[in-house]
């Protein structure tokens, strides 16, 4: 019974795998495994290239180009999205450590110090110029004032001299009697007329 069963099994196996015991034939996969070399009969076979018509070729090229373009754009979009996601999900790259922050602050301070120094030197030059201009202006005004006061004194002196000159003919209390005598002795008559030629016509 057992033997009969074995025979049956053998028969079934022979049917399934073929009668050649030497040819290793796989049941599970119906082709040559990767590790077996090319069959001898196929060793020098050159597969024929499939002929493509012109329109088929162009159509395939069009499809290929379309596919490549679309895939490239998708890939680029995804790449940008990843970058954006990294930037937005973590704020690490903008949050500086205290040391970095301090260094950055020092850099700003140094830059500002250089800027301030430059402005200070420019301002000193400007202030010096302004001071000189001011000194010159004040000097000029002082000289002008001096000139003016001298002129004034000159004018006053002139007037004084004139007045002194005039004072010689003034009627004083002592010469009052004499002046009255003189006036009475020489009466002046203003009652006259003058024509266009300058001739005087006395009335009395």
């Amino acid at each position, binding site marked *: 019974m057992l033997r009969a069963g074995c025979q049956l099994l053998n028969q079934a196996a022979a049917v399934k795998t073929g009668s050649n015991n030497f040819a290793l034939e796989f049941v599970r996969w119906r082709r040559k495994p990767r590790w077996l070399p090319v069959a001898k009969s196929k060793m020098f076979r050159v597969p024929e290239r499939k002929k493509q018509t012109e329109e088929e070729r162009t159509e395939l090229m069009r499809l290929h180009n379309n596919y490549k373009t679309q895939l490239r754009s998708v890939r680029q979009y995804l790449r940008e999205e990843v970058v954006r996601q990294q930037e937005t999900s973590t704020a690490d790259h903008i949050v500086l450590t205290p040391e970095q922050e301090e260094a950055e602050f020092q850099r700003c301070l140094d830059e500002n110090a250089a800027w301030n120094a430059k402005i200070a030197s*420019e301002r000193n030059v400007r202030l010096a110029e302004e001071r000189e201009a001011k000194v010159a202006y004040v000097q000029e005004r002082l000289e002008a004032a001096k000139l003016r006061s001298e002129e004034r004194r000159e004018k006053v002196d002139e007037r004084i001299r004139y007045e002194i000159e005039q004072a010689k003919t003034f009627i004083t209390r002592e010469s009052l009697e004499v002046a009255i005598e003189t006036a009475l002795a020489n009466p002046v008559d203003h009652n006259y007329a003058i024509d266009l030629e300058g001739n005087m016509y006395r009335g009395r």
Partner: protein
Amino acid sequence: MPFMKGREPIRRTLKYLNAGKLVLKDKVRIFSVNYNTYGNHHAGARDFVFWNIPQIQFRNPDVQVITLKNMTPSPFVRCYFDDGRDILIDIDTRNRDEIIEHLVKVVGKTREQLVAEARLAESKDNPANFGYGCERHCICEIPGQVSCPGTVPLPEQMRGKFKFAPK
């Protein structure tokens, strides 16, 4: 204030205010400008106050921005930091473009920082975003959207078990 009234009302437009380049660092708490209303070497500072102070205050709502007039022989900007230090920036005989450029370099945030912060704010502010780091972790939290199939089974017309079932 009515819209087109006053001196240079463009200073009050949103576009102009948002175009300000100077966004101060987080450390800056007070931004003060000292200048005179007369004098040639204060001209740049006057222009700066007239044109750029509105932008600075708009872009930095948490910073106290003050201007002090006619108290100084030469104009300067002084920034006070939160750690008690301060920085003094001389702006004598500089025009307002040079001033703002220097301020951006010294007390302003860098462009990269601004871009990063804008992106961060955008991702937080956009209510359509969901997932890691957002306000909601899944779209299913919105009323009217399909619930997560882990908690509630999908509607039958969406499930292959019913879609492809033999009739």
